[in-house]
């Protein structure tokens, strides 16, 4: 009983921190609207320090693991693992789609989740896609970016997170929000069934899977830049901005009409 109360208190405390951080993001966005020019990086020195540690860990542990995973594990097994991990992420995507003002899309995502969790054997097979329910991936960083009313290149201050990698105030807050609302985290936490084992296993697999898919792009960026940190900072910011811009264009009524016009022309 005491344990549950304490966990609940801890959960509330974390939420308060998140809300406080979200507040600073919105404030930060309003003042430092630098648009597409250079990424705002007031924490550059500590960020570079964390980046060097991340790179060392990546070099001796994560990258070799990801290379082995990519080259040694059969492709079908990799697809299965990715499907399971993606499936576990669907509820968070659905919650974000509700916050993005798209309940229909959220319903589709939940339908995907239900179909894949049952017929797709705990998410191993993505049968929902063959039913025409296409996969989307949303996170709270994108949700904030959608409503923030600033250039999507401006995500507040740039932030190099330990182990996780490049982020910024917006996406870091988003990451925390996603973590807080994740039903699987709450479920395993409340049932207290080897909570840490399940979570570490899941996040660990996610990290290896994601790293294995970014080997080529990151190697390329590192090899062809004179300042890898700055090149990655720029590439990360642009890539996220592109995702948010795509989101905005989709929800923008006028561009939606234009899209339909184009479709009508094609037909």
């Amino acid at each position: 009983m005491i344990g549950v109360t304490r966990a609940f208190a801890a959960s509330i405390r974390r939420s308060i921190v998140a809300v406080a951080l979200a507040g600073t993001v919105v404030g930060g966005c309003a003042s430092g609207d630098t648009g597409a020019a250079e990424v705002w990086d007031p924490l550059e020195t500590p960020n570079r320090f964390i980046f060097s540690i991340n790179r060392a860990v990546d070099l001796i542990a994560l990258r070799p693991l990801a290379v082995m995973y990519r080259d040694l594990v059969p492709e079908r097994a990799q697809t299965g693992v990715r499907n399971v991990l993606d499936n576990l992420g669907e509820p968070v995507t659905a919650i974000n789609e509700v916050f993005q003002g798209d309940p229909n899309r959220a319903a589709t995502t939940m339908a995907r989740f239900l179909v894949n969790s049952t017929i797709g054997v705990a998410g191993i097979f993505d049968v929902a896609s063959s039913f025409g329910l296409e996969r989307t991936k949303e996170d709270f960083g994108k949700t904030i970016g959608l409503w923030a009313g600033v250039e999507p290149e401006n995500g507040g201050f740039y932030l190099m997170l330990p182990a996780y990698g490049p982020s910024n105030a917006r996406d870091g807050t988003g990451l925390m929000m996603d973590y807080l609302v994740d039903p699987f985290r709450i479920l395993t936490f409340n049932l207290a069934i080897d909570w840490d084992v399940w979570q570490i296993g899941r996040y660990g697999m996610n990290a290896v899977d994601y790293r294995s898919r970014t080997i080529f792009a990151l190697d390329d960026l590192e090899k062809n830049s004179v300042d890898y940190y700055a090149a990655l900072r720029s590439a990360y910011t642009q890539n996220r901005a592109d995702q948010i811009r795509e989101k905005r264009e989709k929800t923008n009524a006028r561009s939606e009409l234009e899209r339909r016009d184009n479709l009508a022309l094609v037909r």
Partner: protein
Amino acid sequence: MPNLASRRVVFQLVAAAAMVVAVPAVGPAIASDPAQLVQSTAQQVIEIVKTKTGADRQAAILGVLQSRFDMPAMARAALGTHWNTATEQERARFLKAVATAEAKAYSERFGQYGGQTLTIGKVTPRNGATIVDSRLNQTSGPPIKLEWEVRGDRITDVKVEGVSMVMTRRSDFNSYIQSHGGKVEPLVSELEARAAR
């Protein structure tokens, strides 16, 4: 918001005016269809990747970069405000080093690709340039989103999944210059050393 919207309208008008002025200057002899330019460039590169390797390939890619891309403008944009502080000689060395570095990067990058096709999508005018959307279809995995910026009869930027080549280089170079006393010379030397490797 209304302020922004009107500014955009003004900008579009200016861009439209610029295009009216620019189009006759290009002349009918040059293929001025941006989609066509992107398609033929991609075709040329695929052909090179299929038939050439090593130094031959790098030379051929350099040829494509120089004939299809506006390399001087891209290099200049990548250097940003530092272009103004650079000497004439540094600029010339910089242009040469950047062209070599890009040719090398591209020939190695495509070396690891294979059996891929480019599908041209929507063509939209934006800020005085033309944006050509395309998808690079891979043999496995989802297609990669490529956006080409075309001005006149040359390609001036390529965006891969929203990441602009010129913008990324610009941040990269700018940061290097700032950590080396705000001078262009160390960057040029570094690029030359890399090109020689």
